[in-house]
């Protein structure tokens, strides 16, 4: 137990959760704090909105004495989010993390390492919860004029809620990763394993939502709701079954019943933790051992291979190809930056295949598109989506951060910083193109979009792709996150990526809004986008080649 606490403390210290702890003393820390505040400020409207929604929802639902639904939905969605993010977090903290190598030789039980890592992951989940669940709990509390016991219970539940979903995520990831010990090519298997875990998560997710929607007909639901007395809460079940105890605890916080439910909830958590530990003791190390092994063939190269690979390439393209190779071959980068670009068609098709009814609605959407106004909206949307897709892959916004402690290599190579910046931007742009194209093609397969509109969308999209990539690398040049101990942190826990996503939604949103509000035609929309973003892209290009280069020079290696 003691060693568990020590381990957890060290890991948390290393984690630098909010990016706030100074890494090196100096002025850049003020920037760091500012940007963190900025991002919280960006989330604030959303949190206030959610809190507001919970309050007004309370007033409506308390009329029919079903106010527990608010908490029920809040807990369910939070659990789902925790579970989904948990898959990624567990992969990165339990397996991809570099500290594993130094922990394995120490006389520690697998469960001690596992539990410490689990705790650290929990802290990340609290961040997720803080944005979503905290406003709901607070909003509900204010609306129901709850007493101090309610808030005390809320805090306890806030802390305990992610445990169950995170255990599910851990068990799934650990089972998948348990097989990597058997695989020959570990990197590739880890990538496949990651994909498998993700698809499993999506499948479970769809399954749960389907259960929720179809197990009860509309009439049954209405009858249930008419019973009042928070009857809805009693039907909560499924894999997050214990959430109903959490809701009951809060609804009856002033009564003994609430306390009993709270205890029940906590007991279930403890039980699951114990199961998790005993399971982890046997399967965790199977996946971890040999994490750093790489496959090697030790095969002589042939004359021909030598000749083929030794073709001289221009510096810019050689550098870009190197960036892409690293992105494709590093499991953490592949999962976060590359994979999604190819999966968009799957995500579009999957729901449609599951629910064929919606295909019909799409046909109506088709006639809407053929109408001139509709196509203008489609064009604007395609443009916005292209910028957004490019920002979500995070390649440009983490291009400098990903160098990590190897940033010094950028400094002694005889390649100008401008070329290096452009090569990094190009790697983001090229994957943005892949993502946008796969999205457009998937859309074209299901929607009767005329060819000219597709081409126009691709053309407009290219402005968005370039914009997002340039903006991303400019952000990363300003606040590079170079100190990390596992690659996942460079891309996933990097606020630069989030910031770029916000920018890539907000700024392209302006012409979209204008063209819809002013009822632009397709061509006017296209012209507006091309003009505004043509200029913006050029502007960013010149900023990158001047100020961007200076920022790169100043990065301490």
């Amino acid at each position, binding site marked *: 137990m003691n060693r568990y606490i020590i381990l957890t403390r060290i890991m948390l210290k290393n984690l630098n959760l909010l990016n706030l702890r100074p890494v090196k003393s100096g002025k850049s820390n003020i920037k760091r704090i500012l940007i963190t505040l900025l991002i919280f400020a960006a989330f604030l409207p959303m949190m206030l909105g959610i809190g507001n929604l919970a309050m007004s929802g309370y007033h409506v639902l308390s009329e029919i004495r079903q106010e527990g639904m608010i908490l029920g939905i809040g807990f369910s969605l939070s659990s789902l989010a925790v579970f989904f993010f948990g898959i990624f977090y567990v992969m990165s903290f339990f397996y991809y993390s570099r500290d594993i190598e130094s922990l394995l030789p120490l006389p520690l039980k697998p469960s001690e390492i596992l539990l410490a890592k689990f705790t650290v992951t929990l802290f990340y989940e609290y961040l997720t919860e803080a944005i979503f669940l905290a406003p709901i709990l607070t909003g509900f509390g204010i609306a129901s004029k709850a007493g101090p016991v309610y808030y005390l219970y809320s805090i306890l539940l806030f802390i305990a809620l992610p445990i169950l979903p995170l255990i599910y995520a851990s068990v799934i990831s650990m089972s998948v990763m348990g097989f990597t010990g058997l695989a020959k090519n570990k*990197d590739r298997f880890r990538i496949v394993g990651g994909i498998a875990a993700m698809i499993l998560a999506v499948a479970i997710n769809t399954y749960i939502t389907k259960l929720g929607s179809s197990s009860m007909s509309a009439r049954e639901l209405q009858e249930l709701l008419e019973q009042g007395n928070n009857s809805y809460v009693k039907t909560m079940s499924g894999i997050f079954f214990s959430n109903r105890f959490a809701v009951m605890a809060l609804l009856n916080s002033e009564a003994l019943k609430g306390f009993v439910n709270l205890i029940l909830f906590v007991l279930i958590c403890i039980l699951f933790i114990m199961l998790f530990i005993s399971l982890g003791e046997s399967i965790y190390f199977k996946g971890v051992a040999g994490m750093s092994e790489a496959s090697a063939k030790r095969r002589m190269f042939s004359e021909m*291979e030598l000749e083929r690979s030794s073709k001289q390439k221009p510096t810019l393209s050689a550098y870009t190809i190197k960036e892409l190779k690293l992105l494709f071959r590093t499991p953490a980068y592949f999962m976060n930056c590359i994979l999604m670009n190819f999966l968009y068609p799957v995500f579009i098709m999957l729901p449609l295949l599951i629910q064929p009814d919606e295909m019909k609605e799409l046909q109506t959407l088709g006639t809407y598109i053929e109408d001139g106004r509709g196509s203008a909206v489609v064009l604007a949307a395609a443009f916005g989506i292209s910028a957004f897709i490019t920002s979500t892959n995070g390649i440009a916004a983490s291009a400098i951060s990903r160098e990590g402690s190897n940033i010094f290599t950028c400094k002694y190579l005889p390649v100008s910083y401008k070329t290096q910046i452009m090569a990094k931007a190009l790697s983001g742009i090229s994957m943005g193109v892949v993502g946008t194209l796969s999205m457009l093609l998937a859309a074209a397969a299901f929607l009767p979009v005329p060819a000219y509109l597709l081409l126009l969308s691709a053309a407009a999209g290219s402005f968005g792709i370039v914009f997002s990539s340039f903006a991303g690398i400019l952000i990363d040049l300003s606040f590079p996150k170079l100190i990390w101990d596992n690659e996942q942190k460079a891309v996933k826990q990097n606020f630069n990526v989030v910031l770029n996503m916000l920018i890539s939604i907000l700024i392209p949103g302006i012409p979209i809004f204008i063209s819809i509000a002013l009822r632009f035609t397709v061509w006017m929309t296209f012209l507006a986008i091309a003009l505004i973003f043509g200029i913006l892209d050029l502007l960013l290009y010149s900023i990158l080649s001047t100020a961007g280069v200076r920022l790169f020079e100043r990065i301490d290696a």
Partner: protein
Amino acid sequence: MIELVNVNKSYSGIVKAVDDLTLTVPEGQIVGFLGPNGAGKTTTIKIITGVLTPDSGSITINGIDIRERPLDAKRQFGYVPDNPDMFLRLKGMEYLNFMADMYNVESSLRMRRIQELSESFEMEAALNDQIQSYSHGMRQKIVIMGVLIHDPSVWILDEPMTGLDPKSSFTLKEMMKNHAAAGKTVFFSTHVLEVAEKLCDKVAIINKGKLMFYGTMDEIREHFRSNESLEKIFLELTENE
């Protein structure tokens, strides 16, 4: 030729890592850079290669100022950093070609060099695998090969012999001798005093960022009026007051 004039560098304004260092590494010579742990060797080398910016002072390589014409200066040297763990997901062959592309080495020339170098360092069978799968010494070798592939006139090597097996170490030392004999520059840091004693035309000894001594082996002996080994002299020189 490498010239440092009054170079200063402190980390976060507190630790003075390099203290008013003036040093000229002439052409046609091998210069060893010695000093205890934390003396400032790596820092100095990083300043020369443009990885770190000095607080003050000037650095020229073959007469080209690294801060005024950084790209031209960087084309003059090849640099082996103290830690070879980089570009781990590239295959050895891809890394060599990447370096060759960065230094604009022409195709047929690089092909010949890849063949020669992989032979002398016995790396032919490893070039098809990712650097991640290499041992420490193999990583060291691939980084050295990445430098030699563009045949720079100035070699700057930070503890290059660490982890090399006897044969590779011997190969590298021979290469360094040949390079200097061809009138070019070799500057390397090491902790192995025997290597320095046998290999170097001159040694520079640094302690706490300050240059304690710079001269040939003979000068060193003369200076200390002794026939002591370099080890004794080194220990005396760098002893904490």
